[in-house]
């Protein structure tokens, strides 16, 4: 296990933020930490990247203890934090060369590596502009590029695609895919199930500082059902009656049910409702969202 954490606890004053988190990431795999705002994702990343100390528990990266051997840990990891960490008043090229020099590549090699990365992240055209003139997507790409200068063994990505448009998100996913092919271990956090699904070998679901579920994307999806059907009723009384019949919890006039996504299942549900005179006014079906996962797994 290249990343291993046992019993991580952390509180800020009276608020307990992590309540005993265990993680294990095999070398060359991708782990996604999935959780809503305030779940503790960033706190875990900060502990594993030596920026914060756990109150209890311990963690190692490539065998180095994050508290006792922070310098060794920093030599094998890189971090792309939740908020872009680029120097706004330096150009893209200067930002990359600076990191290269700090990683002791030597001046020439640092420039060369910077050029490679600018190319890879489609920033060559903007390399001599100050980063403050970059769009959100460009900053984020530069930010990731800065994390890749020294080819780290483990990369931490804290919400790498939050706030990106769909095209930039795809570019980012491609870049992450390339890293995986090169055998880099990745620990990423996200609020999007789709992203975890697409990128991760294993997903860990985090809620209020606790792990509520973990497994492969497929395993989790089977656990919560592949698709969801949403039924809108005339009012909440009808919705509650329907919930009594079909299971699930009514949320106002809305009832949200797991489904296998087939027409036959939808047909069956509607038949049952018609027999009781509880036909909904509107029906929609969608792929599971993080909300559904939590509703199901924390219910």
């Amino acid at each position, binding site marked *: 296990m290249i990343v291993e954490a046992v019993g991580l606890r952390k509180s800020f004053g009276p608020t307990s933020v992590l309540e005993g988190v265990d993680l294990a990431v095999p070398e060359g795999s991708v782990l996604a930490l999935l959780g809503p705002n305030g779940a503790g994702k960033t706190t875990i990343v900060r502990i594993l990247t030596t920026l*914060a100390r756990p109150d209890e528990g311990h963690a190692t990266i490539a065998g180095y203890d994050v508290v006792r051997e922070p310098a060794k840990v920093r*030599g094998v990891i890189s*971090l792309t934090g939740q908020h872009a960490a680029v120097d706004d008043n330096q150009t893209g090229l200067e930002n990359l060369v600076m*990191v290269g020099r700090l990683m*002791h590549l030597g001046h020439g090699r640092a420039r060369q590596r910077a050029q490679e990365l600018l190319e890879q992240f489609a920033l060559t055209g903007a390399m001599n502009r100050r980063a403050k003139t970059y769009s959100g997507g460009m900053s984020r790409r530069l930010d990731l590029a800065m994390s890749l200068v020294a080819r780290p063994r483990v990369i931490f990505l804290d919400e790498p695609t939050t706030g990106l448009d769909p095209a930039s998100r795809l570019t980012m996913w491609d870049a992450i895919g390339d890293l995986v092919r090169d055998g880099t271990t990745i620990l990423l956090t996200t609020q999007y199930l789709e992203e975890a699904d697409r990128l991760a070998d294993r997903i860990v679901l985090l809620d209020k500082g606790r792990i509520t579920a973990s497994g492969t994307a497929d395993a989790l999806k089977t656990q919560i059902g592949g698709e969801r059907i949403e039924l809108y009723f005339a009012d909440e009384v009808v919705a509650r009656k329907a919930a009594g019949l079909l299971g699930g919890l009514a949320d106002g006039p809305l009832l949200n049910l797991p489904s296998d996504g087939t027409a036959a299942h939808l047909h069956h549900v509607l038949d049952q409702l018609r027999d009781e005179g509880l036909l909904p006014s509107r029906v929609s079906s969608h792929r599971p969202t993080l909300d559904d996962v939590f509703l199901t797994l924390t219910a």
Partner: protein
Amino acid sequence: MTHDGFGAAVSDTATMIDRSIRLTRRNVDTLFVSILLPLLMMALFVYVFGGAISTGTEYINYVVPGILLLTTGYGASNTAMAVADDMTTGMIDRLRSLPIRSFAVLTGHVTASVARNAISTAIVLLASLAMGFRPNAGPLDWLGAIGLLVLYVVALSWLAAALGVIAKSVESASTLSFFMLFVPYLSSAFVQVETMPAFLRPISQHQPITPVIETVRGFLTGTGLNGTGWVALAWCTGLFLFSFTLATVLFRRRARG
């Protein structure tokens, strides 16, 4: 690719100095203001108040050393803001998650600060000569004055760096460093200590800036040091050691959550 040893520390520091100087060059407005304000203060004191202040000499000859120290105060408060900017944006997490010496980041800021101050102080000094400042100093006196000013600027820049680390935002860094601009007014920079009200006199006489100003004035106007030289040296060295330790310790602790 090694991250150990003295060579690595020097190389990291050089990289961070390059960065801070580049950021300074891109922020000329700030540099401009930190030169313009002392110039205005000097014009104000020499042309407006100067006539009413009696110091026993040409007033401009009396006030220039104080103006020089005031200039370094403006420069240092910019340093506090630059450090606070790093601390409060994601940049510090990036730098701290790299295998580099933690003092490299602050040393970069401090070196840029000293360079900025050297430029602004030189410009203010030239302007004062144009306005009629007539130093009476030999080469050794100049060397002594410059040496002490440099030591003072280094110490003050480390103090500014420490304030930048403590501050929770760039704005509060600017507020915290306000006192660095204020302290010179409570010294012998603009008026002789003897002319101040009784309750202020001991404060003014014993605060660190007064001996530094007296010493620089003694060097430049040839009035002799009267024993202030060692006091000034002791204050500057003490301030440097204190600020350096404070800044580097706090830097390592801050954001370590």
